[in-house]
């Protein structure tokens, strides 16, 4: 088992691709996306309702080591400040196969 960091990002569905492109360039080894997530924060409510994806969030989970964490922190912050969304970081153990 390895000590890692778990980054969780809630982000408008339409912006996910752009963020992942940035993070892939920084060297993340993988990601998990839970689509069709609803939520409410400071901005408009994301009720996940019909017609288009403009009001639907993705929940993105990225497990990284300390080094990558430091590399991606700022880009995520910048991205979210432009496009909205929330991000939390916590410790975890990665069960290596």
């Amino acid at each position, binding site marked *: 088992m390895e000590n890692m960091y778990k980054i969780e990002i809630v982000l408008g569905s*339409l912006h996910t691709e752009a963020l992942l492109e940035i993070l892939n360039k920084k060297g993340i080894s993988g990601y998990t996306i839970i689509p069709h997530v609803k939520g409410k924060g400071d901005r*408009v409510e994301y009720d996940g*309702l019909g*017609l*288009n994806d403009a009001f639907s969030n993705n929940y993105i989970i990225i497990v990284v080591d300390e080094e990558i964490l430091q590399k991606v922190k700022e880009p995520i912050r910048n991205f979210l400040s432009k496009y909205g969304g929330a991000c939390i970081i916590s410790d975890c153990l990665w069960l290596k196969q």
Partner: protein
Amino acid sequence: MQLDVLVNNLLSAPVLFFFLGLIAVLAKSDLEIPQPVSRFFSIYLLFTIGIKGGEELAHSQWNAEVFLSLLLAVFMSAGVPLYAYFFLRRKFNSYDSAAIAATYGSISVVTFISAVAFLKEVNLDFGGHMVAAMTLMESPALIVSLFILKNTIKSDSAESKVSWAKLLHESLVNSSVFLILGSLFVGIVASEKSHNELAPFTEGLFKGFLALFLLDMGIVAAKRISALAKGGVFLISFAIILPLINASIAIILSYFLGISHGNAFLLAVLSASASYIAVPAAVRLTIPEANPGLFVPMALAITFPFNITLGIPLYYFITQALWT
């Protein structure tokens, strides 16, 4: 007889289902259409409009009036943001103004469908190329709005990144435009036999799916309407006055360009309609600073119901007075 037309329009099943959706939310019902089902309805509608539009296009004559009406379509979509933006800037910041301008320059497919159904009801002809005209009006407004935005705000790092090539590309391949264009193409090349085989699907089910889609639109419109409260009277008046102005301009230009009655009416409706599906999604990407709590509910909860209930009969009466 004129009242008849208005009442018939208000009592058509799709319009009633839109209000049913509104009432569901206001009455705090838990009625909801799951998102994938809602998508299915819109895929069905775009597919059908494309196929039928293609069939009509294949049979229609290409003359000067056709080209003029296609040109006017693009002109209206590109022109509306030009005056709307500066009008809006009196009350809103640049981002919101550009977003709303793009929304109103573009079109609403369901409004167009309602107008076509209305034309059939009153037995007025229109050109097979009008679905193409509608498709041409989807995107210019956003491009023009972004252009205005970029030139009015001091271009700092973020905004200067607008890639026009990417934007043009995006406006051709966004899912709504792509599905209509593709189905239009299939509708053009498909044999008569093919069209007959598809008819029970495309023609038979149309009214049913349209009613269910409008039920969903009513629900979503009602859920978004509360966000308008902050905008107040100005916003709501704007969402009714701008369509009236746009329709009037379209009617006047059509009249002088010699466009036929049916086509002029449809161009008026298209100009008066505002996008609440394709453009809002594109605006979230290109103008993330704009508040979606403004431009979506304006188009969906005010302009759309106004157009399908009162607007369509009104534009019809005006054109009727001019053309006959």
